[in-house]
């Protein structure tokens, strides 16, 4: 069902938690299956220095949250905004078809957090 990489990220999720003085916070929810994903960002000189997440959701939801935090760290805001849902899924070695919308969630949550950062730094 899930690839080894999905299971690894599910079992040992990277960057779980919160950032107290985050520069940006994004939360998205998926109406269909009720998951909620919250992403916290720390940004210095336009580069994402730290990302943390909290997720209520299935194995895929947790794994995509985890992997996107890894993918985002070290990227500029512009680069991070270009991360796509498909890239997230590919990074995990693929997701079951019914779970594909979960990867949308991860990319969306990151984008929402970046929007929030931009809003805060206008």
């Amino acid at each position, binding site marked *: 069902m899930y690839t080894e990489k999905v299971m690894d990220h599910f*079992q040992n999720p990277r960057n779980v938690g919160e950032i107290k003085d985050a520069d940006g916070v994004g939360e998205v929810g998926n109406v*269909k*299956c*009720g998951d*909620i994903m919250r992403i916290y960002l720390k940004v210095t000189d336009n580069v994402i220095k730290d990302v943390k997440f*909290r*997720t209520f959701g299935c194995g895929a939801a*947790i794994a995509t949250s985890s992997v996107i935090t890894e993918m985002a760290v070290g990227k500029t805001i512009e680069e991070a905004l270009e991360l796509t849902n498909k890239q997230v899924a590919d990074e995990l070695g693929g997701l079951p078809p*019914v779970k594909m919308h979960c990867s949308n969630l991860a990319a969306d949550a990151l984008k929402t957090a970046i929007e929030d950062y931009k809003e805060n730094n206008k």
Partner: protein
Amino acid sequence: MKKVYLDHAATTPLNPKILETMLPFYKDLFGNPSSVHSFGREVKKHVDKARNQVAEAINADYDEEVIFTSGGTEADNLAILGVAAALKDKGKHIITSSVEHHATLDTCDALAKEGYKVTRLSVDEYGVIDLDELKSAISEDTILITIMHANNEVGTIQPIKEVVDIAKKHNVYVHTDAVQSFGQIPVDVNQLGVDLLTISAHKIYGPKGIGALYVRKGTKLKNTAHGGGQESKIRPGTENVAGIVGLGEAARLASTSLDEIKDMERKRDRLIEGLLKMEDVKLNGHPSKRLPSNVNVSIEFIEGEALILSLDMEGIAASSGSACTSGSLDPSHVLMHMGLSHQTAHGSLRLTLGKGNTDEDIDYVLDRVPKIVERLRSMSPLYGN
């Protein structure tokens, strides 16, 4: 790693004694029961014997009232579509409940698309149907009431006898899906009074892919498949002989071992008690009108699949009301109809006991679940602060 299987409502291991009775039909006794020659006649006898075993186990009056099918799903389909087709000139109204198995729900939905009227009775917070609602739902046009004997997710037992009492006054057939109840609580077609009843072998330590529909003598039922003369022409196709023999033996063993059930109930209650010690955990289903095997709790702030996967890594096989994994992403229709919120329904955990589970299994589960729940909650944006 320790392995604890607590998903007996999904399927049970095959009892080795039952396998033993099946093996000859994979070896020398390979004939086709429809054949005239001795290879066939010999096998036919065993198909007849299995039919008798099932009939006796559910206290049917005639062996021929038992029609073998490829499982519970097919038996439910046959009961509902078969009665609908046979009685379509009498009426086009079917009554079911909102918490049925998909084999029943989806079949009723299919009929609804063909112009039948389907009433889905609501259930209370415990998952029990309302008999008054049933009474007022019955009309001249009603041809069938199909209500499951016990629910597969929350284990709630429905008042089938009372349903039959009401139905009889209006001359309406009653079908019950006894897939989960058979082998756990008494299933007696005459005591219940039903006209049709579904069982499935793989829930009672028999093989997968074989089940039966009980059809009371005289009940009007149209075949839904077409072909040879097998199963009184109601269900054509060369018989799954080994499966049938296995179901016969499984039914025989199921009906004679209701004693072990008391001990299962005790273990179930230990599990429930232990799980309810965690904060924000609630029992789903009825506290007493409940299958001896069934534990179903909602654990707030976490999602079912994540919990199942984590338990799996500890060797514990469980399931969740959350249907995330089975193609649909909607939370359990059963829990939703019992009034749970979307989110709470998503965080359900079903543990279903079997004959092989020990008290050590319960200890192990009660040790691991709280740890896993804590870990998942610590990841959840819904929890804490």
